[in-house]
């Protein structure tokens, strides 16, 4: 190192120290949240937080340009991208943190611990007692300095990254774009086809509609009160955003029956409802359709 | 520079392989002739080598040396000493006979598949020539690295020869035969690969050692030997021993030494007899040859250190192989175990570290090649006639096919090294050589000759003599082609048995040099007779009779 200018310092200002300890804690918490939150949205947000903290650290380390870029590009663009996708996949989708792979947690913990310790040990070994700040390097301005490097020393890398970005953009488009190869089938054709195959001769059952709820995410109920899978959008099901009200429906049904009994004032032999339930359970699809049609 | 004779000798069969493989599927007869022609050209070149080689000349002759991989000091170095010349000659002589003997071996495969690119015949002969090329060049290579490459590359064509072409199924179902064959091929490959890889490590180690001591690493045998002689290169005993073991292991697998032998019976049993001959008479010789050329000369000290163990293993091989041969029910496996016993003799001779032992071992390589070829090929003719390898399926052949039986007997007698046939000389030299230094070993090895008589004669008795079996009653005698194969081999056996001098003259100087490198002297006789010439002996009256009775010779 050239100790001529900007004599190597060994410590930084107290202010920075304070800032480090405070924000550092925040960053770590953010990171932990990122990996521990059940919902992807929360993870994304906490990650964004961490990133902002990092941006601050960049600034503190004299990387002004990067600090800004960090906020603009990362926190601004990339994290938003994430959020988009999260929305796409289902904002409320929460994956259970229950581990399916045997011993995965333990292994992860073990590796993580060892890894971290070793890393720290490595840093500890490195002789970094003193450092010479960026005073001299940033003398011509940080952005200019970077620009000088980017357009001289790293020009090829720079160009290549350009190419990379283009490719990435195109690739993303290609991946997400779905070409419609065949003509969309008209309603007529669909119905004809249904008749031909004899499945779903009438249209699919509609989602459940009640006085209280009227939404696409509520499956319709079958006579026995169980939900009909066919009545809700597959995507919603995939996101796990189907709201099942069959439980209360059944309860109500039971109450209704009792009341009617009391009203009629005569006992029925045991297990009728069970019978009915069975019958309904065993009910074939068209029975279901009748119900849906009746709605 | 002069005409690269050695390269040519290796290149011609390689070209032959290409040419043979290139013959279109329709003309497989042509392929056979092409292969034969190329093998004959190789034979001619070998003859030229034999002529150009001067027994009393330099250590390595007809040398060629070109830089190959400069960074690793690998040089394309060829050169032959007497031992190599003898073995090259053996190879060149045997291959045409092998090709002739295998004239129809690939025919059953023809039409196995409808497609018109299916050319088993071409493949068979091309592979044989390929093996010849590699064997020849590994006999010639004086650069360890070059040697190693071809030593290993040999496995590829051999693998296909063993796995691809086999006997008629006989009483076994086609599938069983096929599985057996592929098992044998894989076993062969795995054993030899294992050996080869260990050797590779040793080769690298050798390079490292030379690089340490000489500054620039080298694989050149000559250079290393000289460096050792001049004391420039002195390996630590432990290093040398490790390297030696690495090399020796590979060679011990190749020249099957007990207990690394089990691949041989399978390989020889399942492959067609010409291929079996190729294995035992040609390819395996590379192993024993390499022991002489590389193990002993690169690591003399370690060789001496390892000698006791190796001798014991060799003795075990001799006795064990013979006993197992006696126990076999399958003609080819019997011959295979006999070969194991013989390789035991060869290794015994090499590590007896005496002129007789090593000279004998070298002769043994040649003679065993010829005699096994004779025996195995005749056995092959026999087997193709009957379509079975079981001894029990034969009997009384001598009556219906006397010539076949006769040649078979001669081959057998050569195998039990009957005096007057070539193998006797080599075997006796090995015994004497071993006995001179390790009497016990010599005596134990001598047991081998009795056992040899047992297995050969039992084989002959059960197959050839006795009442004629129904299945063999209509067996034709040797056809002209087959006679053309066997007769010269037998003639060779007789000639070398009566007048081995041409061979010994070539081999002796090389052996002496090897011993000088190892720095071993023949043990001196206790009461050397000054005048070994013939003079008249007349009994002395004194002490002529122990009871002191006065005798009258006057």
């Amino acid at each position, binding site marked *: 190192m050239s100790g001529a200018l900007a004599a190597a310092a060994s410590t930084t200002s107290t202010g920075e120290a304070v800032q480090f300890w405070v924000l550092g804690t925040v960053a770590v918490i953010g990171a932990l949240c990122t990996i521990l939150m059940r919902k992807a949205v929360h993870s994304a947000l906490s990650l964004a937080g961490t990133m902002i903290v990092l941006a601050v650290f960049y600034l503190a380390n004299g990387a002004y340009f990067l600090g800004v870029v960090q906020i603009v590009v990362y926190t601004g663009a990339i994290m938003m991208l994430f959020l988009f996708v999260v929305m796409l996949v289902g904002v409320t989708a929460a994956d259970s943190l229950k581990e399916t*792979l045997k011993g*995965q947690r333990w*292994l*992860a913990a073990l590796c993580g611990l*060892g*890894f971290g310790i*070793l*890393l720290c040990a*490595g840093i500890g*070994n490195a002789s970094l007692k003193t450092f010479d700040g960026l005073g001299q390097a940033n003398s011509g301005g940080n952005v200019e300095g970077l620009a000088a490097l980017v357009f001289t020393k790293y020009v090829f890398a720079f160009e290549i990254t350009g190419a990379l970005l283009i490719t990435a953009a195109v690739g993303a488009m290609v991946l997400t774009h779905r070409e419609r190869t065949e003509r969309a089938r008209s309603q007529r054709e669909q119905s004809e086809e249904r008749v031909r195959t004899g499945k779903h001769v009438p249209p699919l059952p509609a989602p459940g509609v009640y006085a209280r709820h009227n939404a696409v995410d509520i499956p319709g109920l079958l006579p026995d009160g169980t939900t009909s899978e066919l009545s809700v959008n597959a995507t919603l099901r995939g996101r796990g955003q189907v709201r099942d009200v069959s439980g209360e429906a059944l309860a109500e049904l039971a109450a209704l029956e009792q009341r009617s009994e009391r009203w009629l004032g005569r006992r029925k032999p045991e297990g009728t409802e069970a019978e009915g339930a069975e019958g309904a359970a065993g009910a074939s699809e068209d029975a279901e359709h009748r119900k849906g049609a009746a709605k | 520079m002069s005409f690269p004779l050695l390269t040519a000798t290796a290149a011609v069969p390689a070209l032959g392989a290409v040419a043979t493989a290139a013959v279109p599927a329709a003309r497989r007869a042509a392929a056979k002739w092409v292969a034969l022609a190329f093998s004959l050209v190789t034979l001619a070149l070998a003859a030229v080598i034999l002529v150009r080689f001067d027994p009393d000349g330099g250590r390595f002759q007809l040398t060629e040396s070109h830089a190959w991989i400069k960074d690793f000091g690998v040089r394309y170095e060829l050169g032959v000493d007497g031992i190599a010349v003898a073995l090259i000659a053996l190879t060149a002589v045997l291959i045409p006979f092998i090709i002739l003997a295998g004239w129809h071996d690939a025919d059953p495969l023809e039409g196995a598949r409808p497609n018109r690119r299916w050319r088993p015949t071409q493949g068979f002969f091309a592979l044989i020539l390929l093996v010849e090329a590699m064997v020849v060049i590994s006999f010639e290579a004086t650069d360890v690295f070059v040697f190693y490459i071809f030593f290993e590359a040999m496995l590829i064509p051999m693998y296909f020869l063993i796995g691809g072409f086999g006997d008629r199924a006989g009483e076994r179902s086609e599938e069983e035969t096929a599985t057996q064959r592929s098992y044998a091929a894989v076993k062969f490959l795995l*054993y030899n690969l294992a050996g080869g890889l260990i050797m590779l490590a040793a080769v690298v180690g050798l390079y490292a050692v030379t690089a340490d001591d000489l500054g620039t690493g080298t694989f050149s045998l000559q250079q290393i030997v000289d460096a050792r002689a001049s004391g420039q290169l002195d390996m630590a005993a432990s290093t040398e021993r490790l390297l030696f073991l690495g090399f020796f292991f590979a060679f011990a697998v190749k020249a099957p030494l007990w207990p690394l032998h*089990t691949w041989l019976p399978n390989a020889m049993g399942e492959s067609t007899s010409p291929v079996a001959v190729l294995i035992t008479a040609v390819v395996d010789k590379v192993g024993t040859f390499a022991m002489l050329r590389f193990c002993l000369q690169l690591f003399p000290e370690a060789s001496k250190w390892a000698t006791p163990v190796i001798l014991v293993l060799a003795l075990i091989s001799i006795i064990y192989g013979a006993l*197992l041969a*006696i*126990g076999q029910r399958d003609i080819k496996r019997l011959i295979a175990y006999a070969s194991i016993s013989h390789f035991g003799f060869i290794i015994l001779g090499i590590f007896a570290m005496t*002129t007789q032992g090593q000279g*004998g071992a070298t002769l043994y390589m040649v003679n065993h090649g010829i005699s096994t070829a004779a025996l195995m090929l005749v056995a092959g003719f026999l087997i193709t006639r009957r379509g079975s390898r079981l001894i029990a399926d034969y009997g*009384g052949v*001598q*009556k219906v096919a006397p010539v076949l039986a*006769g040649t078979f007997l001669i081959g057998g007698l050569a195998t039990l090294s*009957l*005096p*007057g046939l070539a193998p006797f000389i080599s075997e006796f*030299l090995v015994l*004497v050589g071993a*006995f*001179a230094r390790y009497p016990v070993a*010599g005596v134990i090895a*001598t047991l081998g*000759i*009795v056992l040899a008589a047992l297995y050969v*004669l039992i084989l002959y*008795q059960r197959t050839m*003599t*006795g*009442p*004629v079996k129904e299945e063999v009653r209509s067996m034709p005698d040797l056809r002209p082609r087959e006679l053309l194969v066997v007769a010269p081999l037998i003639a060779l056996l007789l000639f070398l048995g*009566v*007048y081995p*001098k041409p061979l010994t003259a070539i081999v002796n100087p090389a052996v002496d040099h090897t011993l000088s490198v190892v720095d071993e002297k023949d*043990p001196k*006789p*206790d*009461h050397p*007779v000054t005048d*070994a010439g*013939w*003079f008249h002996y*007349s*009994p*002395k*009256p004194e*002490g*002529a*009779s*122990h*009871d002191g*009775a006065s005798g009258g*010779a006057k």
Partner: protein
Amino acid sequence: MENLIGLLVAAPLLGAAVLLCGGRRLDRTGHYLGTVLAGASFVIGAVLFADMLGRGEHDRALHSQVFSWIPVGGFRADVAFQLDQLSMTFVLLISGVGTLIHIYSIGYMEHDERRRRFFGYLNLFLAAMLLLVLADNYLLLYVGWEGVGLASYLLIGFWQHKPSAATAAKKAFIVNRVGDMGLSIAIMLMFTTFGTFAFAPVLANAEDASEGKLTAIGLMLLLAACGKSAQVPLQSWLGDAMEGPTPVSALIHAATMVTAGVYLITRSGAIFNAAPDAQAAVVAVGAVTLLFGAIVGCAKDDIKKALAGSTMSQIGYMILAAGLGPVGYVFAIMHLVTHGFFKAGLFLGAGSVMHGMNDEVDMRKYGGLRKYMPVTFVTFGLGYLAIIGFPGLSGFWSKDKIIEAAFAKGGTEGWILGGAALLGAAITAYYMTRVMLMTFFGEKRWEPAPDPDKAPSVEPGIEVRPGEMPHPHESPKSMTIPMVVLAFGSVFAGGLFSLNDAFLKWLEPVTGHSHGHSPLSAATVTAGTMVVLAIGVALAWAQYGRKPVPRTAPRGSLLTRAARRDLLQDDFNHVALVQPGRYLTRGLVYVDHKLVDGVVNGTAAGVGGLSGRLRKLQNGYARTYAVSMFGGTAVLIAATLLMRAV
């Protein structure tokens, strides 16, 4: 002259080559060629003999160096011949008897379609045998030694369609191989001791070597001799060897090959002289065998086997004599020669009898043949008288001297040996008389020819209709003439040799000789011999002459039964060697398959199993891989840190 020596061997060798490679076109003339060539070598031998007589007794030996055979370092083996009196004796015996037997075979093998090959083998044998006795070094002798072994193998097994013949041949060769092992070890010992194994230098310097070494060499040579000369304990093959055609038994297993052992010991006299222990062993072997063979000879009903037993015992005499050292060498050889005559004669006679009796070999089915085959009877009779040592005939001269020499050994040893020899003479007289009586005297006990399928011993070509009574007839001239000649030999040879010790003087320069001082005078010994001889004959007469011979062998005493089984030697070998060997090989085959191979296959299986387990780690869950990567990185860092630390 020297060059002629090579011809001695070359002539029959050429014959063998031509006859064996010649192919069918020689079938008609082949046997004449073979006979002529055998005769040729006899003529050459005679010429050389005449020439040799022409020279002084000490420069009689000839030597011819043909070419250097195996030159490797200090190891020098030459193809070189040495013809001294000893070799000459053998040359004449071999080529002479050989020629006669060739002639005999012309008639005997007349009906055999493979006669050409038979003569080829005979010539091969002559060549090898001559090489054996002419070699000037032990290695070349070894070549001849194994050569005769091969020839005898081929000839014993000549009728290969008979399993018994094939087995007998194999047995002979292998037992001989054991002997050969001894010879080769002996040669190695010589090489390590003297640096050479040519006769002259080795024998001339024998005394210099340590006695231990010499004893070892001597014992090894003895082992070789035992193998070739069918001495205890390697005698078992000779009896079975009678499976071969009778001329073979006559030539190889009576007259010449089996005596090679005697030649070897006599030739190596110097070594044995310097190694008393070895000599003692030789003597012991000789004495045991001469009794052994004689006893076996008494019990056999198969005429050839009986003669084989007698051969064994006669060779026992020779070995005994050779073992006695310079006292006995000459007489060993002398007995060898006379024995060559009368035993060959006897065998040829036996062959002639079989020829007339539809190849019946069982003497109990003979009887009263003397008027049907007079010539055979007379010649056989003379041979008989010779072998029992009837005064004046060959056997008398040679055997008597041996007995004398045995006594001359001195001390109890001498008494034992002499006693054994005398006893042997008595038994010889007994069993030979037995053979004589059962074959030519008494009433006819002939039986119809057996069904060839049931008795495969019928020689091919001789047309025998099953159930046909034999019609004994005298054999053709080609067979009788040799018998007559041999008869002459067996009558007069001994006398001629002993005529003012001609034979002694002839051989002495080579073998040396010393007159042992016997405790008994020569006369006493002779008288004793006569007495035991008479006793033997009388016993035999009492048993087989006076009362008729039963057609089926009586059960007999334990000894008889044992003797019929060759004194259980085969049973012993079977139990002691064959059976264990069989188990050993079987066991080893198992071991090789299960253990040696099993280890390898086991390793393979182990690797397979292990990888099967490792496969489970490859569960396809990206995150598992991630963990492993994670861990791997950790390990890497640890490694780097360690390296830095170190």
